[in-house]
């Protein structure tokens, strides 16, 4: 293996592979390091993959089988101890082959497929290799040190694409330790025949469903959300909660997953399932002061390593933002090679373009909402339980005092009393205004 490359990429996830592909296509020599035995072997996400960027470069990705099902239903639910209220959006008129550019996926399969595309374009993939540090000449980063014999590799530019933990960005001095606002994602992949999945989730063929359970009993009332996503012949079942909230809850994270699976309303969806894999991974939800420096002399930070995530349960995006950042990093690196300047000043083109893109703008916008949510625990605690209870009160068909049936007016007044006593009109209006303000 030559020890000199135009670009060294640490990581082989979607952002890394997208960057490697674009760089190799532009004729640059690229080496990509994966610490697992194959790309994707250390990766985990919910997850749903959003694909406009993927389709632009790989129009045949759907038929290539790298994704699972296209999402036609997004359902948002709140659970109390034994009840559920939910709202479902079913979109059945998006056109094939990309539908709404929302596909359930499994990372071991997807990441390996995308990395192979980068290899076909000419990038060199080195697996089973950990990169612990960057090499410097003065302030300029000039390569990486892989944890192996003769592991020093020189490169004009290094791309830190090493995911949520990004020890490389930390080692290079671009960020401090991650804060307790980072989210722990915990998941089981459980198997179920595809016919049963389609029957149970009201799907046809390769259609898929994504169900988000926001706060409430799904996560024992702490900040966070649980989920069920349909894959071809498996379901992804899990949750994500900030470490701070899990620390305060003092329950084993794997038991919290069992608690979710055993909820009366969830259990029915999971009948007959057998766990195939258990996984956990950090989701880098970072307040502004904890975001890393994105560019330094000879190095760029992309994807999860750069804190690119939209952890809002309505959207749950990240891998698409990684791919966007990988692409923009590649464009900046190609421009830097044209002028032979690999300083931060030259590479800052990446940061400028990234900040204008959906990836940065969505992250910033929804981070504000997350910060707001951190100071409003009732949105995940009290509200889901109370809303479910009030809905049940309103819908309860009871025998009336007259031996017939309770008039609706009595039910409505009882619900109103409950609302005023347990939540309060002022508190509720203030909380809604706080949500609105965070979104402005």
């Amino acid at each position, binding site marked *: 293996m030559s020890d000199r490359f135009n670009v060294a990429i640490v990581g082989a996830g979607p952002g890394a592979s997208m960057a490697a592909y674009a760089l190799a296509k532009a004729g640059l020599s690229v080496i990509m390091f994966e610490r697992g035995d194959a790309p994707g072997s250390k990766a985990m996400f919910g997850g749903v993959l959003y694909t406009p960027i993927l389709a632009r470069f790989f129009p045949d990705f759907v038929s290539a089988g790298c994704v699972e099902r296209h999402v036609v239903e997004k359902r948002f639910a709140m659970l109390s101890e034994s009840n559920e209220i939910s709202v479902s959006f079913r979109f059945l008129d998006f056109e094939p082959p990309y539908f709404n550019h929302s596909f359930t996926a499994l990372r071991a399969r997807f990441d390996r497929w995308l990395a192979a595309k980068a290899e076909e374009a000419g990038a060199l993939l080195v697996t089973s290799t950990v990169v612990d540090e960057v090499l410097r000449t003065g302030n300029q980063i000039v390569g990486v040190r892989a944890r192996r014999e003769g592991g020093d590799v020189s490169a004009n530019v290094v791309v830190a694409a090493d995911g949520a933990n990004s020890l490389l960005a930390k080692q290079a001095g671009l960020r401090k330790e991650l804060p307790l606002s980072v989210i722990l994602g915990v998941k089981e992949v459980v198997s179920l*025949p595809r016919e049963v999945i389609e029957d149970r989730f009201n799907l046809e063929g390769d259609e898929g469903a994504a169900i988000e359970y926001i706060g409430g009993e799904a996560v024992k009332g702490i900040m966070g959300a649980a989920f069920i996503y349909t894959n071809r012949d498996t379901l992804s079942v899990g949750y994500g909660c900030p470490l701070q909230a899990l620390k305060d809850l003092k329950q084993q994270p794997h038991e919290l997953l069992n608690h979710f699976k055993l909820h009366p309303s969830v259990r029915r969806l999971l009948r007959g399932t057998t766990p195939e894999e258990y*996984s956990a991974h950090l989701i880098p939800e970072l307040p502004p002061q904890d975001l890393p420096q994105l560019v330094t002399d000879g190095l760029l930070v992309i994807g999860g390593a750069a804190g690119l995530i939209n952890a809002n349960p309505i959207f749950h995006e990240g891998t698409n933002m990684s791919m966007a950042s990988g692409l923009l990093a590649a464009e900046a690196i190609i421009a830097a090679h044209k002028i032979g300047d690999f300083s931060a000043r030259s590479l800052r083109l990446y940061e400028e373009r990234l900040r204008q893109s959906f990836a940065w703008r969505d992250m910033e916008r929804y981070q504000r909402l997350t910060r707001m949510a951190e100071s409003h625990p009732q949105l995940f605690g009290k509200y889901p339980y109370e809303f479910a209870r009030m809905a049940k009160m309103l819908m309860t068909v009871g025998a009336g005092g007259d031996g017939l049936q309770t008039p609706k007016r009595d039910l409505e007044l009882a619900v109103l009393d409950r609302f005023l006593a347990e939540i309060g009109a002022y508190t509720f209006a203030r909380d809604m205004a706080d949500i609105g303000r965070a979104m402005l």
Partner: protein
Amino acid sequence: MDVNLADYLGPPKILGRDDKLALDLIRVNEPDPHLKIRAQSVCLECKDKPCTVTCPVENYRVEADGRTTIFWDSCIECGTCRIICPYDNIAWKYPAGGFGVSYRYG
């Protein structure tokens, strides 16, 4: 394949910590623990021990004598313990290349 729906109506299979871990492929690099407690004295002083309630595979246990033990060979490399430790008392690095957890689904 003919699928009989009736075969899939039983309760979901719920697994404990050990059975969940048994599903995962983890290659252990025997001579090289990638997680270490820097100083037991710090753990002995630590009241909350948040590592013991946040590790998703329950790899942190407090022994009878108060010492904290890491079951590093069943680590799935999420990074929680490194961040949760209030005293930065866990030396945390990735396992050697090709070792550690290898997800088949992910």
